[in-house]
Each structure stands twice: as C-alpha cells, then as structure tokens.
C-alpha cells in the first residue's frame, strides 16, 4: 500500500500521453478547416480582386469594385426579391403538403400508409434537372402533355394553356410539390413519435378535439415544424436546377442561377470576381439562415416532447374521407415522381421529341436505350460513378459520425466550433462551395480527377449526416460509452465497437441519403468536369444540353429506375438485419 507521497508518478512518454480524443477532435477540425475554410477564404479574396482577374489568384491589388458594381445594379435587388419569393413560396407549398401528409400517415387511419415512406425515399432518386425537364414536357403552354389532355377533355379550341410552367407561380408549385416528399421524411417523425399521453392528458382535462389540437398538439409540434421550415428555406435559396430550367424562360432569375451562369462561358461574360461576390451574398444569406436554424433547433430541443420511445399513436378514423385523403397523399407522389417519369419514358422512346398523340405512337422504339447501352462514353463513366457513390457517402457519413460524436460526447473547449464548421456547407450553396474548391485546387493534380468530386460531395453533404447522427447519438445513453472506457477500451475502439453499431440505422439512412444525392447531383461534377472524371450525372447533363433529349431521357430513366430499385433493396435487407429500425 502506497501513500500519496510514495506513489509512483511516472510521466508517460509524450507519445503515449497523446489523448486519442484530442487527436479525433483536432484531426476532424483540421480536415474541415482545409476543406471548408480554405476554399471560402479563396472565395473572399477573389471577390476582392479586380473584376477581370482569372483564378488561380495571383497579384496583390484589392478593390471593392465587385461589391460596388453589384450593389449599384438594380438587377441585384430584383434577384434578391425573386430569390425570397421563390424560396419562401416553394417552402410554404412543400410545408403545407408535407405537414398534411405527415398527419395523415402518422395520426390517421389512411389506407396504404405504409407505402408512403418508401415512396418518399424513392422520390429522392429523381434528379432535380430530370423532374424539372419532366415538368416542362408536362406543363409547357402549347404542347405540354397535361395541357393537351386537359384541352382535349374540356374540348377547348385554344392552342395554349391552361397551365404554364414558365411562370413564377408554376416554378413555385412544381418545386413545392417536389419538396413535399422529402419534407415529409423530416416531418413524419414529429407526428409519429409524439407521446399520445400528452394529448390524452388534455382530453381528460375536458378539452375537445379542436381544443386539444390548438392548445396542445400544434404548440408541441410547432418547434419541430419550424426547424424543418427554416432548413428548407436554406436549401431553397441554393437550389438551381428548377430556376435554371424554368426560371430563365419565365424571366425569374434568382441568386443561385446567377452564380452558376456567371461561371458558365456559354451564357455570358465569365466573371469569377462577380460570381464570387454574388456567392458571398448567397453565403451571407445562408449563414444568417443557418444561425436562425441552429437557434430554432436549440429551442426545439429544449422542450423535447419527442422521445425515442416507440408509441402507438391513437389514430383518427377518417371514415369515408380516408379515400380522398389517400388520393391526395399518393397524388403528390404521382405528381412528383410518376408524371415526370412517364414524360421521360415517353421522350426516351422517340428519336426526336413529339407531343403525345396516336401519330407519334408509331415512332416509338428502343433505339435510344440501345445506343445508351452501347455507348463507350457512358460505360467509361460508370467506373467513376461507382467510385464516387461508394466513397463519397462512406467518407461523408464517417466524418459526420466523428463530428457528431465529438460535438455531443467529447468535452473539450472549441468542440462547438467543430459543429459550426460542419454545418457551414449547408449555408454555402453547392455551386459556391464547388466554385471555391475549383479555384483553390485548379493547380493541383486533384483537379480533373474524380477525387475532387468525391471531396466536394463528402463535404457538401456533411451537414445532413451530422444532423442525423447527432440526433441518433443524443439518444444513446452516455453510460454505454463510459462502460467502454472503464472496461479499458480506447476512445477509438469505443467509437468503433460501441457507438457506430448503436447508431447503425441512422448511419445507414444517412449513407443512403448521401448515396442518392451523390449519384444524382450535377453541381459538383459539372463544375469540375473534365473528360477523365465524367460520371453518370455529367453524362446525363451533357446529353441534356448537347442537346440529345431522347438519349438524355433514356439514361435518366435508367438512373431513376436503378436508384429506386437500389434504395428498395437496401431498405429491405437492412430491415431484415435491424428488425424494422431502419426507416
């Protein structure tokens, strides 16, 4: 027995004194700093360089000219106004539909409600460009398939309308409906996991059904719904596929499209300085919204009524109205997935596009599919695609898991910064992030390889993974990890053997989400596009803009069908392994 005075005070070597937790935190911070902060710093510099300067950045003359030009131009304010209208409008449409769907699925006896979730996931599989194109084919004034059908049914002899997708309203509606499915995925848990006892308590206190709804259910759900709403405003400020495909003809330019076009020599004066300046504006808006989002999330978590426990919610009997409700819910998916997909399939069966008619039916053939399968260019892009969609989700979710773990579990000063860093890509439009990486890496060998896309996706999709895994990890009792420590396991072993398996369902869901987004994303592959790093998405875009709409449609149909099948199979397999915990 040693007294304190006699105890061995062995100072271990510096190597063995390195705390793994520090290595994890600082290592992750370093990775994030290099991949997030450096490109953004370059972006700031470029926005301060003379307009005509071409990256990579050389020279030391700085000026505020870009900002002066931007803020002196009335078009800028129109852009901001359009962006606000579009982002808020489409978010509102999506939110109303999403909340209704979540309520029907979570709290009523809607028929076939178990089919809604897989449908919503499948809707992830539709690239935005493809949906947008599908909608142009469906809703353009003269030959839009829907317009032709409606005119035929009403016997109208007008040759345009009644729908016109090339308007701000059209753009908002199409985007809003497209959002509803994915918003449902975020909203549904709030409805499904709310403890019915909270409502029952109100009912037993004498409140009527409406009173309960007004005074208990809605206030309880409000913070959750608000976080989703703010999250989607952030996303909508950045989205550019719909505004690019529809908004140019509609005469509704928005911020994200402006940033994109400023880097496209095809369309206008290529101007990295101005692009960077607009990117800074977009980023500023994004950061403000991100601040709001993080604040709202914190408030929402403060009175967490949603627990991890599985409740059996008491479902409202809709009576006869359950059938119209089902038509409504599945109709949204019809509009989001099935109609555009049908439009695409139709386009893919023709050698040149023709409106739906009996005459055109005679032109149908599978030639486009034959040439897609026969295309060496597309075959070559498959290897890159496989590399991208296996590595990017894996790296992104692993990094997200580390960040989530560090920020929820490791008590170190500055850990909070890690989370903010990881959330930055959410605030920064993909187009801005991509541009920043492009100008940063243009002198390195990474430029032009598929790795630059992998890095872009890993970082770009990080916030979603962090959000998902933080939420999952917060539900894991702290003692489960501490038991690992007192059993003598190192922090990394605990992460690997205890934490990761416990959050595996969330991990898998996140992986699938990034996978689906990575395979269909155009932003990064296009910005970084060279012949050597072509991926499937680039091929679709190229066919689309070549333009070879028939072959583009054929390839898109194949991609969407493959993605749906893949998501379906993974979920089925995962459900078998985790007993229904993968949702």
């Amino acid at each position, binding site marked *: 027995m040693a007294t304190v005075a006699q105890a061995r005070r062995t100072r271990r070597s510096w190597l063995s004194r390195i705390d793994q937790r520090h290595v994890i935190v600082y290592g992750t911070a370093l990775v994030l700093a290099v991949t997030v902060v450096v490109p953004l710093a370059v972006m700031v510099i470029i926005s301060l360089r003379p307009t005509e300067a071409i990256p990579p950045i050389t020279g030391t003359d700085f000026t505020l000219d870009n900002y002066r030009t931007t803020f002196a131009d009335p078009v800028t304010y129109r852009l901001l106004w359009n962006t606000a209208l579009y982002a808020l409008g489409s978010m509102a449409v999506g939110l109303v539909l999403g909340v209704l769907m979540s309520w029907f699925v979570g709290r009523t006896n809607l028929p076939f409600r178990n089919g809604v979730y897989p449908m919503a996931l499948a809707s992830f599989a539709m690239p935005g460009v493809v949906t947008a194109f599908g909608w142009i084919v469906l809703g353009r004034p003269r030959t839009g398939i829907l317009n032709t059908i409606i005119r035929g049914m009403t016997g109208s002899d007008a040759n345009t309308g009644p729908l016109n997708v090339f308007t701000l309203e059209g753009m908002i509606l199409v985007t809003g409906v497209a959002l509803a499915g994915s918003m449902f995925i975020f909203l549904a848990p709030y409805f499904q996991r709310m403890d019915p006892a909270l409502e029952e308590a109100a009912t037993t206190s004498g409140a009527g059904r409406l009173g309960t709804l007004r005074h208990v259910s809605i206030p309880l759900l409000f913070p959750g719904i608000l976080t989703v709403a703010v999250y989607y405003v952030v996303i909508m400020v950045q989205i550019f596929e719909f505004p690019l495909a529809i908004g140019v003809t509609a005469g509704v330019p928005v911020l994200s499209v402006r940033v994109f076009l400023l880097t496209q020599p095809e369309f206008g004066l290529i101007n990295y300085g101005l692009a960077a300046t607009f990117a800074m504006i977009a980023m500023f808006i994004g950061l403000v919204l991100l601040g709001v989002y993080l604040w709202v999330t914190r408030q929402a978590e403060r009175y967490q009524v949603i627990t991890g426990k599985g409740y059996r919610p008491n479902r409202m009997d809709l009576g006869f109205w359950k059938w119209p409700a089902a038509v409504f819910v599945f109709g949204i998916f019809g509009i989001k997935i099935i109609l555009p997909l049908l439009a695409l399939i139709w386009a893919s069966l023709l050698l040149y596009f023709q409106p739906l008619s009996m005459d055109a039916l005679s032109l149908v053939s599978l030639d486009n599919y034959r040439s897609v399968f026969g295309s060496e260019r597309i075959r070559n892009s498959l290897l890159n695609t496989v590399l991208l969609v296996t590595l990017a989700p894996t790296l992104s979710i692993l990094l997200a898991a580390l960040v989530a773990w560090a920020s929820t579990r490791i008590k170190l000063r500055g850990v909070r910064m890690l989370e903010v860093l990881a959330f930055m890509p959410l605030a920064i439009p993909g187009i801005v992030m991509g541009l920043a990486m492009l100008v940063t890496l243009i002198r390195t060998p990474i430029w032009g390889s598929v790795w630059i896309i992998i890095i872009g996706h890993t970082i770009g999709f990080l916030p979603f993974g962090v959000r998902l895994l933080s939420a999952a990890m917060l539900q894991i009792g702290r003692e489960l990890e*501490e038991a*690992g420590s007192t*059993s003598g396991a*190192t922090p990394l072993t605990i992460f690997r053997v205890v934490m990761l*398996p416990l959050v595996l369902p969330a991990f898998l869901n996140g992986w699938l989400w990034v996978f689906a987004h990575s395979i269909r994303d155009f932003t990064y592959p296009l910005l970084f596009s060279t012949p050597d790093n072509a991926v499937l998405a680039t091929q679709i875009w190229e066919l689309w803009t070549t333009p070879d709409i028939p072959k583009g449609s054929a390839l898109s149909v194949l991609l969407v069908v493959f993605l749906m099948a893949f998501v379906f199979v993974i979920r089925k397999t995962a459900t078998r392994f985790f007993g229904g915990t993968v949702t």
Partner: protein
Amino acid sequence: MLTVEKLRKTYESDQGPVEAVRGISFTIEEGRFYTLLGPSGCGKSTTLRCVAGLERPDSGEIVIGEDAVYSRDAGIDVPGNKRDIAMVFQSYAIWPHMTVFDNVAFPLAHGRARVPKAEVRRRVTEALEMVQLESMATRPAPYLSGGQQQRVAVARALVSRPRLLLLDEPLSNLDARLREDMRRELRSLTMRLNLTTLYVTHDQVEALSMSDRIAVMRQGLIVQEGSPVEIYAHPAEPFIAQFVGKVNLLKGRVVNNGNGTEPGLVDVGAGGLTCFVPEGIGANDPVLLSIRPEHVVVYAGERPGATNVLSGRFQSAFYVGDSWECVVQVGDMALQARLNEAVTFSIGDEVNLELAPDHCVAFRSEE
C-alpha cells in the same frame, strides 16, 4: 489501495460554476468495501467518476495501488481506459447490440487486459458462473430482465480482475426484494475475490449493511468517516443522524455540560434530559438533542427506575409489519417511537416516554 487526496471538481452550469467536490481525502485499504454515502448532489458520484477517469478533477491526487493516476501538481492524468479499474453503472450500461457473452467479453477483447480467444471464453464463462448467468451467454442483451442485466454488468466488471471495483448506485433500479438479494450477493462476491471496492449510494441500508467503512458526504465534503456502527451510533452531526436513519431532534439548552467526562443535562422545555454533551459545548449553549425512535420506550403510568422521562399524549400509530411507528405529542414537539409489541394505547391517551440516556446525544445548534 486507493488514495484520494484533496480532490476538487467544479462544473460549469447555466447558473455559473458549481463546486461539486470541494477538497476531499480518503483511503481504502486493500480488500475493503468503502462506501460514499450522501443525498443526491453531494458529490459522491463525481468523486467516483474522477477515480474512474470519466471526469477530470480540478486539483488533488488519486493513487491506485502504487501508481498516481491523477496528480495536478505532477501533471499526471492517466486516461480512464488505462486505469486498473472496473465499474458498474446505475443504468447497467449493457450494450444492446451485443449478446450477454460479448458484453462480458468486451474488456478482454477490446480493453486493457486483452487475452487470447480461448482464455476469453474460459474467463467469461467463469464470470457468468459467478453471477449464475452461464445459461444465458448467447442471449441478446435486450432480452434480459433488469436483475439479469445487473448481473451481466457485474460479470463484465469482474472478468478483467480489476484492482479496484467501482459501483455507482448499482442497486437503485432494482425492486426492493431483488435489491436485498443482490446486496448480499455482491458483498459475498467482493469478499470471496478480496476485491477493493468503492461504492456510491444514497441508501443508508445498503451502506450500513455492506460496508467496511462509510464516508458520509454533504455538499462536496466528507462530513464523517467511520465504520457503519460508528456512523449510526455516533453521528457527528444531526444531518448524519437523520440521513442514516430515523431520529428525533429536540431543541434545548445545556444546563450542565458534564465537562466531556460524564453525562450532561439538557433542558428541552418539557423537562431536563441526561445526555452525552460533546466537548466544546458550554453551559447555556443551544443544542439539538437526538434520539432514535427505537431507543424511546412508551408506557402508561409509573415505571420504577425510569430515567429521562417526558410526558405526552399519544397521537398516532402506523403498523409497518415488524413493528409499530408511533408519534407522541410532548408540548409542542412530536416525538417518534418504535414499539415492537402490539400497541395498546388509544389516540389521546396520556403516556410517558423514556429516552435511553446512553443513546441521547446533544449537537451544537445555531439557535
């Protein structure tokens, strides 16, 4: 075996810093069962977690065996996973994604004391036998009852043969009956294995029945350390007296302090009582006189030779199975007494109380 020296730990909270542990020291001898007892928030769990390496103290020293594992002055802070300890958590912390076997095998497979596969199997089986769960080895952990999970947690702690076993309120989630069995079982296991044990609880029955030594903690400090008998019979403060069992506290004033050698006399208003008056309390000082209910005898009429007698009116009696808990109103004081035989009094009866002088202790009071 374990020495904790001037340990301090402060938390940051929304309301500012909270001093959870304010400089405590204690030593556990090899093979002894040592309990930190106190109400929630007294700093006992924080102390344990500092020893386990789950919290980093602000200052002080912690020595396990011959090795300092924490010393602020010497700049030593051995990570928890490198300390020769094992711990059982209040929530058991059984990993739900593993089987019983994998849970128990974890310290040997992934921990400090890694051993070959065959050895793992042998030792896990041995540990499971110790807690009588050998038949459940392949069962997934979530399919166990609370008591079984508890045993798995104990087996996991024992399997690595730690030098020091840390138990953080391990019995508080069990129902009363199971708790009693586990108490006995845990104690006999640690005795058989000659394990040095640090036990944290707020339950005085657990503390009194299991420990070799008890340290009573309050507001981050150890207020008394001693054997269970010492703590129960000679509490250093009214707080301790109250915490380790039921106690009557009577306000009074010292008439004669007995100079610390013989019993003194305290006037409690309803009469003078003979009791032990600790040193340092002078005549006329305000005191609290403590006596446990089981040392109060209630009787009607006169009883020859009785000392320290107060008169009162019988108030109530609750039957609690093995005895009756009675309340007698004496002036403005309600005194509790425990009667082992059937109560023959009716409410409102005039009764006398004899407060056994050997068990009356006076504490300094702030008036």
